[in-house]
């Protein structure tokens, strides 16, 4: 007796009950499809977060103020310049020291404001107006769409020029070309030097509701000459971000006369470590989604057991006939096992197709990214599920005694 014949019997068995076979297959289809789709969604959302972080600049470190030791609140309230709680332009300058900070490429002092800008009757509150220096653009991955960026001259001479983001440009100027025009911020006219390329939204915020003016100009007219909001540092490479972070910490600790044990009054945020964190977060997320999908795959497998048990009971007489005619135990076992494995394999194959089709759509705002390993895994697991969940009913069929099986009504 050949395996081909057993295979033929198994196929005939499946065909005999098409609806039931289809429904059982559906269970596996949904399981496999869900694994592929959900893992892809997890991966997609991870990729999206990574892309958003990358938009901010990959080699980026941000130094910001942080509530440090005791008495800081009091000193801030009185407005006195104490030894704590401020970042200065000099701090930013000090980070450019090539001997103490060899891994730092650029260091840009940043002040921020959120003023209202007007242009011939149109008003727009800029979500973030940054006062900084030319190196800021490259550090934060901003690219110019038209016009020109802010120059060093603009900063030293505190020129009233501004570079605006796409949202500001469309809100204030509509269809008119903003380059060379003047917009008003707090009744102060600023000439638009350039327009930035769009970055798109980063989660909840519109990154393009944004403008940059020279540091000195913003300090003069909007924020005053107190502490900087941030120092944006660009490391020489992605790998250099960690040593750069250490260098920044030691330089600023020294400059701020902090004891080694005291909690620092500044904080250095490393974009790379942020990437790593978000990476592990989305990984957990993906695993979680995959686990949920895997459960549905197991449920589909139990469906196979269930249906195969029903099939074996229903076909007890057939099994008896086959045994009486000389079918060995292995042939009966093989027949029902192949039926179960075919059910799960067909379900698995259709599930792969369903999963692949599903990943072509945007799911909950996320563009899914197919993980090839998940396809192979889901398909292999579906085959194993057929073997595993089919072996119990098939074994029961093979063990039936021919006399009892023949008497079965």
């Amino acid at each position, binding site marked *: 007796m050949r395996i081909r014949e057993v295979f033929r019997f198994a196929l005939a068995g499946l065909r005999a009950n098409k609806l039931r076979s289809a429904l059982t297959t559906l269970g596996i289809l949904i399981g496999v499809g869900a694994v592929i789709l959900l893992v892809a969604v997890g991966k997609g959302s991870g990729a999206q977060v990574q892309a958003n972080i990358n938009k901010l600049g990959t080699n980026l470190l941000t130094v910001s103020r942080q509530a440090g030791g005791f008495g800081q609140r009091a000193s801030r309230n009185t407005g006195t310049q104490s030894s704590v709680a401020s970042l200065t332009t000099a701090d930013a300058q000090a980070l450019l020291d090539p001997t103490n900070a060899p891994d730092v490429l650029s260091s840009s002092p940043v002040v921020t404001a959120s003023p209202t800008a007007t242009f011939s009757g149109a008003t727009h509150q800029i979500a973030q107006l940054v006062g900084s220096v030319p190196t800021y653009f490259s550090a934060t991955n901003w690219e110019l769409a038209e016009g020109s960026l802010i120059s060093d001259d603009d900063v030293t001479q505190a020129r009233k020029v501004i570079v605006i983001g796409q949202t500001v440009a469309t809100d204030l100027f509509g269809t008119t070309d903003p380059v060379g025009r003047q917009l008003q911020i707090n009744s102060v006219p600023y000439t638009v030097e350039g327009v930035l390329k769009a970055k798109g939204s980063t989660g909840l915020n519109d990154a393009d509701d944004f403008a940059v003016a020279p540091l000195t100009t913003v300090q003069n007219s909007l924020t005053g000459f107190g502490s900087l909001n941030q120092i944006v540092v660009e490391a020489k490479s992605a790998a250099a971000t960690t040593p750069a972070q250490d260098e920044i910490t030691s330089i600023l600790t020294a400059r701020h006369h902090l004891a080694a044990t005291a909690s620092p009054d500044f904080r250095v945020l490393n974009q790379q470590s942020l990437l790593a964190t978000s990476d592990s977060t989305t990984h957990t997320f993906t695993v979680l989604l995959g686990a949920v999908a895997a459960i549905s795959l197991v449920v589909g497998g139990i469906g196979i057991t269930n249906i195969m048990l029903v099939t074996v009971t229903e076909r007890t007489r057939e099994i*008896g*006939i086959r045994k009486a005619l000389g079918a060995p135990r292995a042939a009966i076992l093989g027949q029902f096992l192949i039926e179960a494995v075919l059910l799960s394999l067909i379900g698995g194959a259709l599930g792969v197709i369903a999963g692949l089709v599903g990943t072509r759509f945007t799911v909950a705002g996320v563009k899914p990214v197919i993980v090839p390993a998940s396809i192979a895994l889901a398909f292999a697991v579906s085959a194993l599920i057929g073997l595993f969940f089919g072996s119990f009913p098939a074994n029961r069929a093979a063990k039936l005694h021919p006399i009892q099986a023949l008497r079965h009504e």
Partner: protein
Amino acid sequence: MGGTAGAAGLDDLDDLGTTKLDLDAVPAHPVIELGEVHKTYGMDGTAVHALRGVSLSVPAGDYVAIMGASGSGKSTMMNIIGCLDVPTSGRYLLDGIEVEHLSDRQLALVRNRKIGFVFQSFNLLPRTTALDNVELPLVYAGVGTAERRRRARAALELVGLGDRVNHKPNELSGGQQQRVAVARALVTAPSLILADEPTGNLDSTSSADVMALFDRLHRAGRTIVLITHEHDIAEHAQRAIRLMDGRIVSDERNGARGWLSDRNSAQHGSAS
């Protein structure tokens, strides 16, 4: 188709390839040889003694009817002769092979090669054509597709269903279904055709057809064992064995019509 043509057709079916068991040993021995066979079901306390020492020898070419009321042990006897069950004690040689110590697998092989079953309820596979049903034992015997087709067709021709090969059981009458079952029983050219109440579910015309078929097979040299409780069916046989309470109470041989019913009534009178 005549009896002689049928015999030639059957002889054609007589090569079945090699097997692990030496099933094709010299046929100098009886087809069935039962020696003091006992069969007990259940545990000591509630034991049911279905067979209490049955000895029987059926030579090749014999045509035997095993008769008995329900509970006489004839079903148990049929199961043991058919290798569907093994005796509790005693010897059983089927075509010279000692059956009582065979494994499950070997029993399956013996059933496949040595016995052709015909059941009361036909036991054809549903939703399966007559041809596929007849091919089934050949599939388990490992015969190739073309050869299988050829033999199954020949067997169906032999039972007069050459024009019904692609009909499914639900498209055939009871008599036709039983003839398909007979074709299935003889397609492997077995040493023994074992029929369990073959006409029990048939009307008289179909019964006559099927019995005529058995008679023809007998004339062609087949060994046939019929299990029945109907005298007029048993009359077709050359030999009648009566079972009662697990024992053989009579074993008679006669070929004349009416021999059984006469003896039966006479025996009934003496027994009661």
